[in-house]
């Protein structure tokens, strides 16, 4: 802990955001990176707890207090080395992770938590800038071959860890590019895709073989082990009257370019992060207005994402009863809702409805499975951890 009194002196300061009026006009990342100086100062707020709940809360066990201390002391390189030891994709989690660590931060008990996520991002971007992030292929190859099916965070995590152990890893991806949900589920304005490309290039140089547009259905031949990490692919549906109407999209379809919100009245059903991503995307497409509804009551502390700031009405405790369309073109015109607290029923106009209700968990059948495919839909950071754990298991079995 660089400065024991840091938390009393320095106020929390997160990364800045570009002005709403500016950012809604493009698909570039909404936030601006913090200066190194700010990050160093923010790191001093970390108390280097004897029992760091952040480290406990972080699914991959990032050495948060250690790298905070190093950043405070301007030992960026060491901080980067420690960050890299636990996290294969800090430049992704540093942007889009919901930051369980910050929720767990001890300082958060009676003050604003440390800006852990932003510190993580600062370290990795600093490292890229300095050219420290270089391929580090294993010193020796074991001669074993491993196939990883799926190139989302879980699959990549497994691939990277096994490659580090010296196994030859081939990653198969059904789509045309590597990244899975990170590439196709997260809008550009939250995560510019060149970030992923930058990393994948390094991994290629470390010796991982990526094969895209390979929709593998059964264990491929010629591998000593196969890991399945295909994600959770079945979106949860809302089977209510009117579901067959036009203009109702699953979030993932919407985010990958289906449907266009331009000039439309958009309703996003589902109050989670994906829902927020849909809000942001809809606004960028030029939606007339956006409403987001959530089944659960309003929590005591409402998380406002950047997308919400860009214009969105949020409603809580709303149950969707049915989709209402016109007879003419069979497309949706409004949704019939019920307020679960007051019992009042009403309609919300909508000519584009997005279902952001998560995904269904399916029972995995394969021996080695990782990520959402195994656990059901979850966070990127959990998928990274799961990929790592499966990799360890596979490594032991080889």
């Amino acid at each position, binding site marked *: 802990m660089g400065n024991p009194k840091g938390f009393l002196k320095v106020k929390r300061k997160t990364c800045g955001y570009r002005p709403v009026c500016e950012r809604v006009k493009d698909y570039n990342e909404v936030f601006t990176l913090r200066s190194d100086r700010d990050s160093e100062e923010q790191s001093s707020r970390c108390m280097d707890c004897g029992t*760091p709940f952040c480290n406990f809360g972080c699914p991959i066990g990032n050495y948060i*207090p250690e790298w905070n201390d190093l950043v405070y002391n301007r030992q960026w390189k*060491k901080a980067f080395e420690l960050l890299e030891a636990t996290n294969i994709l800090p430049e992704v989690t540093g942007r889009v992770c919901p930051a369980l660590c910050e929720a767990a931060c001890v300082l958060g008990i009676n003050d604003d938590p440390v800006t852990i996520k932003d510190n993580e991002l600062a370290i990795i971007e600093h490292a890229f800038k300095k050219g420290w992030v270089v391929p580090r292929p294993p010193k020796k190859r074991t001669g074993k071959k491993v196939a990883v099916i799926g190139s989302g965070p879980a699959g990549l995590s497994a691939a990277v860890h096994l490659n580090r152990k010296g196994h030859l890893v081939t990653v198969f991806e059904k789509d045309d590019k590597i990244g899975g949900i990170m590439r196709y589920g997260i809008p550009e304005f939250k995560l510019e895709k060149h970030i992923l490309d930058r990393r994948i290039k390094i991994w290629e140089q470390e010796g991982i073989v990526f094969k895209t547009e390979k929709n593998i259905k059964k264990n491929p031949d010629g591998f000593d082990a196969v890991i399945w990490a295909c994600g959770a692919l079945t979106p949860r549906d809302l089977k209510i009257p009117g579901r067959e109407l036009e203009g109702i999209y699953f979030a993932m379809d919407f985010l990958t370019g289906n449907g266009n919100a331009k000039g439309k009245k958009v309703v996003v059903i589902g109050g989670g992060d994906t829902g927020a991503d849909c809000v942001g995307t809809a606004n960028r497409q030029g939606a007339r207005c956006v409403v987001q509804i959530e089944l659960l009551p309003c929590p005591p502390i409402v998380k406002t994402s950047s997308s919400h700031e860009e214009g969105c009405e949020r409603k809580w405790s709303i149950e969707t009863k049915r989709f209402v369309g016109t007879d003419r073109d069979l497309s949706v015109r409004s949704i019939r809702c019920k307020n679960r607290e007051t019992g009042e029923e009403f309609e919300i106009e909508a000519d584009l409805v997005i279902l952001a209700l998560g995904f269904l968990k399916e029972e995995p059948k394969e021996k080695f499975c990782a990520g959402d495919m195994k656990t059901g839909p979850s966070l990127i950071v959990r998928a990274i951890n799961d990929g790592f754990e499966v990799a360890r298991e596979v490594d032991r079995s080889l």
Partner: protein
Amino acid sequence: MAFGLNTFGPAPKTKVLKMLGYEKYKTEGLYSPAFEHDSCGVGFVVSIKGEKSHDIVEKGLQILKRLSHRGAVGADPQTGDGAGILVQIPHDFYKKVFPKLPQFGSYGTGLLFLPPNKEERKAVKEAFLKIVEKEGQVLLGFRKVPINESEIGESARKTRPVIEQVFIFKGKRVNTRLEFERKLYAIRRKIEKEIKAESFYILNLSSRTVAYKGLLMAEQVEEFFLDLKDPDFKSAIALIHSRYSTNTFPTWDLAQPFRFLAHNGEINTLRGNINWMRARGIDVIVPGGSDSAALDNVFELLTLSGRSMAHSMMMLIPGAWEHDNLMRKEVRDFYKYHACFMEPWDGPAAIAFTDGKDVGAVLDRNGLRPARYIVTNDGLVVMASEVGVLDIKPEQIKYSGRLEPGKMFYIDTETNRIVEDDEIKEEIYSSRFYGQWLTENMVDLDDLHKTGSSVRTGRDLSLQLKSFGYTREDLKIIIKPMAEKGQEPVGSMGNDTPHAVLSQRPQLLYNYFKQLFAQVTNPPIDPIREEVVMSLESYVGPQRDILSESPEHCRKLRVHEPILLNEELERIRSIQKNGFKTKTISIVSPKSLDAICSEAEAAINDGSTFLILSDRGVDKKHSAIPALLAVGAVHQHLVRKALRTKVGIIIESGEPREVHHFALLFGYGADLVNPYLAYEAVGLLVDEGSLFLDETTAVNNYRKAVNKGLKKILSKMGISTLNSYRGAQIFEALGLSDEVIKKCFEGTPSRIGGAGFEIIEKETQLRHQAAFAENGSDLLDTGGIYQWRKDGEFHLWNPESISAIQDAARNNDYGRYKEFAGLIDDQSKQPTSLRSSFKFKAAKAIPIKEVEPVESIMKRFATGAMSFGSISGPAHETIAIAMNAIGGKSNTGEGGEDPARFKDNRRSAIKQVASGRFGVTTNYLVNADELQIKIAQGAKPGEGGQLPGHKVSALIAKTRYTTKGVTLISPPPHHDIYSIEDLAQLIFDLKNVNPSARISVKLVSEIGVGTVAAGVAKGHADMILISGGEGGTGASPISSIRHAGLPWELGLAETHQTLVLNNLRSRVRLQTDGQIRTGRDVAIAAMLGAEEFGFATTMLIISGCVMLRHCHLNNCSVGVATQDPVLAERFRGKPEYIINYFNFLARDLRETMALLGIRTIDELVGRTDLLEVDEKLLPWKAKGLDYSKILYRPKGESHCTQKQEHGIEKILDRELIKKGSGEYKIKNSDRSVGAMLSGEICKKHGEKGLPEDSLRFKFTGCAGQSFGAWLAPGITFELDGLANDYVGKGMFGGKLIIHSPLKNIVIGNTSFYGAIRGEAYIRGMAGERFCVRNSGVNAVVEGVGDHGCEYMTGGRVVILGPTGRNFAAGMSGGIAYVYDKLGEFEPKCNQAMVELEELSLGDQKTVKRLLENHFKYTRSPIAKAVLDDFKAEIKRFVKVMPIEYKRVLTEEEIELLEVGDG
């Protein structure tokens, strides 16, 4: 301390007569007689003119009686721990009773303890006959010694041997007395070796002296031995001893005096001393004896070798010469020379010795035992632990003095004079050319040619670090602070990680060892403030025969610091001087320990004088054998082969990095250590920018930190020099198998067995393989010991358990509590504590309603001693309110309590009395239900504490009765407890002040704590608390948190078993604490012997603590452990939470009790039969663990059923209270006079007491210890005569006037300790530690011994005479004015915290007023002389001003003139 027979390994192959007898050395359960301690009263009376008389004998016996309060009685009130007398042979008397005696001097005699069995006695006598003849002497016969056993105790009678006396006539070929004494010695040794029967013992065998002693109480000696009553029984010398032993089975033969000496104190380095004697191939120490007996054995050997008694004693117990520039060079040379071949016997000691002609006495180098003497006008010298042991009329007294550390008191009865210390020393040092010998032969490492070479690993550093088990934490938390600040790192909140043997992770061998520490029977030393006595200087290389002296004896390599730099090591490696030769032996595997030992032996035979055991060269194929294992094996091997003293052992290892590691290496025999990899780690930190220092400075800082830490570890055990610490094995192993102990650490206790060589090997391999794994990471492991980490070591307090208990307590949710209890109790994945491996046996359950109710169980709960100061005000009060609500007890901790809390629900029922005595006012004491004497605390036993000035807020200063902003130091020992009888005295003091409070004593678990507790029980404590070594703390060196003290399971079980075996358990209650959390923990604690249970960390966690472990930084973000008002605001704890928790705990416990079929806690205490080991839970390393000793269940009363007899019914204070002001006679057995009276006054009148001089008492005579203790406002004590130790202890506003016609020592040691207010005028001199930790008394005295005004924080002291050394050490406040007539004060003053100044006008006024008072009250001629010529004389005063105090006073503009008119 005594050691069992096994100390010497297999018995020599002589014919051993098998005899019956009581079992002396039996070991039961955790109790072992090997850890008994004793301490005592010692004294002598001698006619300087050598005039033999029966009167001297009677006087000797009289002294014995008057010291009886310093002895102890066991469960049987008529059986003492032993007492005896050593006199000149009363020839006339023996001639009368044994007519065939030849003339005096031509025969030897001695008393014998013989077996009760007739046949066996016959066999002994036959052996005598045979051996005496073989030695060419004549056996004259045996005489039955007449005894009267009607008065002695039951157990003494049961074990009484037959006592006879033997007479041996001098053989023809024996010429001198010395030759004859040697013959007698040879006879005795031969018989001792031939007859190993437990009821056989030769008291002594001499032509000069004879000893009478036994398992008697002091006053019984005279009645028991009828000889002593005969008027013809005459001697000019009577040396006496009365024993206070902690032990459970005191024996006849361990009574003192021994052949030459009587000893009050304890030899801490005994294990090493015995080993070193053995290493020399000298077999003189009789197994089964006490430390004092062993010292006597060696002393005897040295004198019989032809050295004088004084010379021998100076060899064994040297003064603190290393840093004493005031000592004559010749004397220092003498000590230095002898340090080359005799390690000091270190520990508190007052020793009286005689050979029948001369009598002498010495103190240990630190003066830790009291010894006073009086010389009378008619040529008598009386020396004893106390003054006043003989009623001598004041006009008869010529001189009254005290023994001084490092000085010898010596009487030659042939030349009829007292020989001055200077003279006696001069005689000794001038007999040889020690100085010249040293110059010519001793080589200084600093003078050796610099080689310039220094090896650096460089390449693969991270692999090396990993192979040796370095973690990132080691670098960040251990090495960095050491290299940065030259200090050992500090941490907090205890240790909740698994014991090494239970941990799933590979552990360094060091982690299996726990540091032992001094408690009660012997004081730890303050290595900072009393650095004058500490030394790390080493004399390395081959040693010569101790029985002769030659120039070559000092052919040694002198090394100032035992931690070698690489370059220094190279100097030794290439040494070519003095016949020195160095051999490097690799300890890199594959290689066996046996091979290393043989190599070492071969090297010695080849003439090597230094062995370097080196683990350089670790690579993929070669791993390092643990350096500790290697040094232990080699050292033990060489000791066994009597080769160890031929060589110096140097360790060159990558392994040691923490202070604890170094301490172990030295403790198990290393002479010097070179930690090359630790240095490289320092270099790495510099390179990577973690340290903003150059590498040389950083390495030097690191080394400084190690040295400091080493001194601290030595001092915890009460050891002052590395030379006597080396090989002393002051450790206990936890989890190592017998096989390992036997080969490498013989003699080290390892009570539960554990890991063998294969496990140790496997742990090394695991680390090594991980380091050199293909495609392994360069990153060091996380560690996770000091801070929890997801991928680090397991902690019982972890995010899950902390959240669970906080939720449960806040939401009053028993379900959540059970989740918490599950997280703690189910340790199947990672056993952590010893108790985790237990399970309850199946039993017949009872309905829960039959079990003792929650309310009554909660009365047994107490909270740990956490001071207001270590935790915030709101936190402290929250705990107190909760405990008062449930009928439990909260504890003030050290540092007092705001009197505003005394009468309301924020009051702490337990008021602690710790070594700093802060805030321990009379009023505080009378407002307690329990007074707790804190001897040690789990996290840092044997250490003191310090509250830096910046943390001493106005409120803290107020409750501690000190000044805001002035640093407060708590010394490591209580300066009024250096031994067990001193503790008994403090218990007596406290009981007097507040007779309605129970007195408890807090000890920390370590081997031998049971026997210490037995002593404490004999000292009349009402309750004994055994704290586990894992307990939490506000601030403590990290190594102490982890490595000092043992878990309570062991300490509690040992204590309980020892007390039961000793029939003392029924007199005293037991409490335990240290990481207790759940109902299961409480149940196990009860089963192992506790009636009450303490909680500290859990209290804090419930109050919001999330284990930041920042307590020592004053930076607690949740407002628990902080004094920062901004942070304290954040405190969110509530008494209800704590109340909820205790309700859950009691409920949980009741559920367990119901399942076990137990109705009350009392029924549960000691029921180890309800526990068994859960074998399948033991992890891979722990398969060899054996818990049977912990689970041993002795027969006997197993919980407290009766009250202690405190002996306060018929004391002088009762009379004072009844009769009020007036004149009284006083004698040394009138102890703690004034304490009860003061308690009464504060009970009635509170803090302010009575107006000045309301009650006036005038005493004549010799006052016993603690005269005027806690003297309350309004009381004036005047004493015409002398006083013993602890005058004015804790004085709280009273006035004390002591005058004596004598010029010399008038009051004893440690006066005005922790005194708070009041005035004192002493006409005459005081002993050591005058005004130690004085908070505010104004005192005048006419001279003081060593360590004057130590740790003082307030008050004004005028010293009208000489001072001893180390004046003002640790003095942070108050002012002393020293009348430095001869200008010799400055070098005696420790100026680390003070400045010497001229007196200001204000100061002069203060001094004048005090002197006027002094003259008014005592008619002091010195005061008068100064006052008569004040203007001139005041210029000769020096003002001793603490630097910090001065700054604070200037800042605050506090009025300096606060002295009353008197």
